[in-house]
């Protein structure tokens, strides 16, 4: 057991750091809520192209698909350095790189890998995820969107919801029902769908933050070439499980670093805000709460490090990755509740208001923290997984 990085890993870190210093764009568009999203997306595409040309996208991906072929630790280091430099994250990292990548690498055909993977890294193509439906949330296997085989193509009909970045996406990784008579988990297939296909309608959904980051997506007789099937017909549940496991794994280091830097900013805020005639930071109860958040954010880091070592040794994250997802999403909520408490009456004032603290950024973060415990498997689903698949308790 050794928490120190090796000299090679430190060299890698320096290389990342130096590259970021030299190449991180000094100017970037102000982005807030849903304003000027087009400008922001263009900026992100350019930024990612730059990263990708320099070989920084897909650190742990194999070289033949445009990756760097490095290990999990290098991936951690790269993510840490990106966050430390406050560099904009890779575009679409959470779906293209972390979901579609593993799905195709584990289950896809070689032609699919060659066709799609490099363009994910270079940001030439952006991906969205079509899993949830109005009637299939936590109970994903009850999904109803149908795909019927018609010669050398599928015809897809149905509706997906909570699809992030659908408006800006080129492709969708889609779960569909291909056998209505089979048991629920055994009649699902996974398709790669061109978002410009005729018959697709995207309708943005307004969220509690006022933003429209996600959309409803309607499929009305959409033709999808048969070669776009991932894995076996009716084998989509296995693909979905691979994807969801990765969605909960070490990519959380990005959240960890964000949570840590937000905590640092909260501690600064506590020194600026006056309560009962003294800085809030001098209040013993506020100190206890901030210290607890510090404890949790540091432990999150070590949980992720342990998981990374497991991946490095065994190849893939186990169901234990549910612990990490549960941990960070729940602690995010607690941390933002402390932020609201710190601001007291001013916690009511949002961006644009006279007297708003830090331009209302904490209210936005507070509201967003309610999403983390729902998406990518709600806290309740994570607890089910931990109880049944890690602890081996009988199914409910």
């Amino acid at each position: 057991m050794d928490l120190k990085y090796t000299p090679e890993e430190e060299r890698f870190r320096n290389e990342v750091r130096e590259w970021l210093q030299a190449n991180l764009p000094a100017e970037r568009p102000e982005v807030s809520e849903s304003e000027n999203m087009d400008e922001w997306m263009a900026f992100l595409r350019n930024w990612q192209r730059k990263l990708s040309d320099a070989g920084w996208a897909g650190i742990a991906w194999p070289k033949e698909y445009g990756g760097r072929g490095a290990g999990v630790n290098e991936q951690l280091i790269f993510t840490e350095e990106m966050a430390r430099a406050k560099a904009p994250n890779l575009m679409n990292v959470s779906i293209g790189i972390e979901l579609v990548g593993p799905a195709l690498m584990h289950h896809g055909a070689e032609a699919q890998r060659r066709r799609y993977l490099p363009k994910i890294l270079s940001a030439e193509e952006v991906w969205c995820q079509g899993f949830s439906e109005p009637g299939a949330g936590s109970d994903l296997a009850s999904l109803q969107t149908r795909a019927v085989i018609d010669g050398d193509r599928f015809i897809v009909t149905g509706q997906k919801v909570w699809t992030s970045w659908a408006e800006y996406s080129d492709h969708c990784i889609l779960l569909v029902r291909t056998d209505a008579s089979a048991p629920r988990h055994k009649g699902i297939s996974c398709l790669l769908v061109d978002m410009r296909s005729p018959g697709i309608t995207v309708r943005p959904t307004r969220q509690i933050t006022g933003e429209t980051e996600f959309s409803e997506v309607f499929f009305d007789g959409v033709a999808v070439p048969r070669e776009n099937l991932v894995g076996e017909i009716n084998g989509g549940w296995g693909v979905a499980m691979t994807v969801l496991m990765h969605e909960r794994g070490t990519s959380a280091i990005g959240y960890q670093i964000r949570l840590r830097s937000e905590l640092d900013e909260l501690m600064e805020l506590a020194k600026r805000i006056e309560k009962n005639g003294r800085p809030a930071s001098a209040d013993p109860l506020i100190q206890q709460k901030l210290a607890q958040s510090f404890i949790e954010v540091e432990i999150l880091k070590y949980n992720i490090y342990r998981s990374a070592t497991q991946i490095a040794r065994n190849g893939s994250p186990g169901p234990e990755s549910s612990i990490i997802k549960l941990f960070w999403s729940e602690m995010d909520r607690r941390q933002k509740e402390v932020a609201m408490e710190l601001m007291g009456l001013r916690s009511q004032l949002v961006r644009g208001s006279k007297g708003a603290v830090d331009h209302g950024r904490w209210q936005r973060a507070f509201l967003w923290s309610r999403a983390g415990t729902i998406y990518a498997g709600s806290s309740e689903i994570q607890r089910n997984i931990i109880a049944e698949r890690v602890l081996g308790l009988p199914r409910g």
Partner: protein
Amino acid sequence: MDFGFTPEQEMIRGQAAEFFRRECPTAVVRGLMEGERAHSEQMWRKMAELGWMGLVFPEEFGGAGLSMVELSIVLEEMGRVLAPGTYFSTVVLGGLLLQSAASAEQKRRWLTPICEGELKATLALYEEHECPGPEGIRVRAENIDGGFAISGKKFFVPDAEVADLIICAAKTNSAEDRVTLFAVDRKLDGVNITPLRTMDQTRSLYEVSFESVRVDESCVIGSEGGAWPVIGRALDLAAVGLSAQMVGGARSVLEMCVEFLKTREQFGRKIGSFQSLQHRSADMLLLTESAKSAVYAASCAASDDAPDLPVLASIAKAYSSEAYVWIAGEGIQLHGGMGFTWEHDVHLYYKRACADASTLGDATHHRRRLAGLIGLG
């Protein structure tokens, strides 16, 4: 970076787990609880034969030269079975303090016999009023013809009746505001030991009063008045070690609960299939695994002599304390009426959890300390 155990470390864990399962089943623990000192000389001998007394101490003083990571592994396995005895007092409280504070000659005098299993030690630090800093030390040592006479009272001294050597923190005339450590032979005149009755009977605590106890200069560990920074580091290591024991206890309670949930039936089904109980078990695992991460990170920091040891020690102690108490409490609840009986073991863990949580600084104390360390207040 490799944040997992090496094959050698896994071997030590396997050996420790096997040893405690064989030598320290609940029947043995309960037997020792009924006795007066919660200590088994036989188990002590066997542990010494396995080389565990000297695990972390340098080879030149008779130890094995391993690190805090290996010590934490053994402590975790001890905590799993609630092993009574003076191992923690001797190795973690006494030994680690001697290791950082004593001169080479003193180490040969006291640390080497500890490594050989020939000497037991303990630390007399706390007094009547709970106070974690040097200002809490009121026991006095008067300078008297080339030596000292120690007077005053210490509370919460573990294993004082079994320890051969009591390390006592006191203040001398010539260094009034600063703390000096004295190595006091338990059998000296004026050392009076009174047992305290404790909720957790797997550990023995005592009041030790010193009535003009005469010691010579060679019994000053390190330098006169120079003990505090060293004590601070030793307490950090002890907090990590105690947290490792708490992790072990939390693991046991969780195992016990999962086993019960898989077998107990009510309403015609296994109660482990009820979601309310599944979710609480999931939270128990989350807390246990997270406490492990904190303890292992702090153990690595200790073995690397890293500057963030104080931060990591406080993180580990604060988090493990609350996790263990909550988990053991849930353990009682999940077992229903059986969990409230003397016969069932879960109350032993609950009591140990409460005792450990309050020892070496509770969660509130460590959060307060952390607030200072990270620049608040």
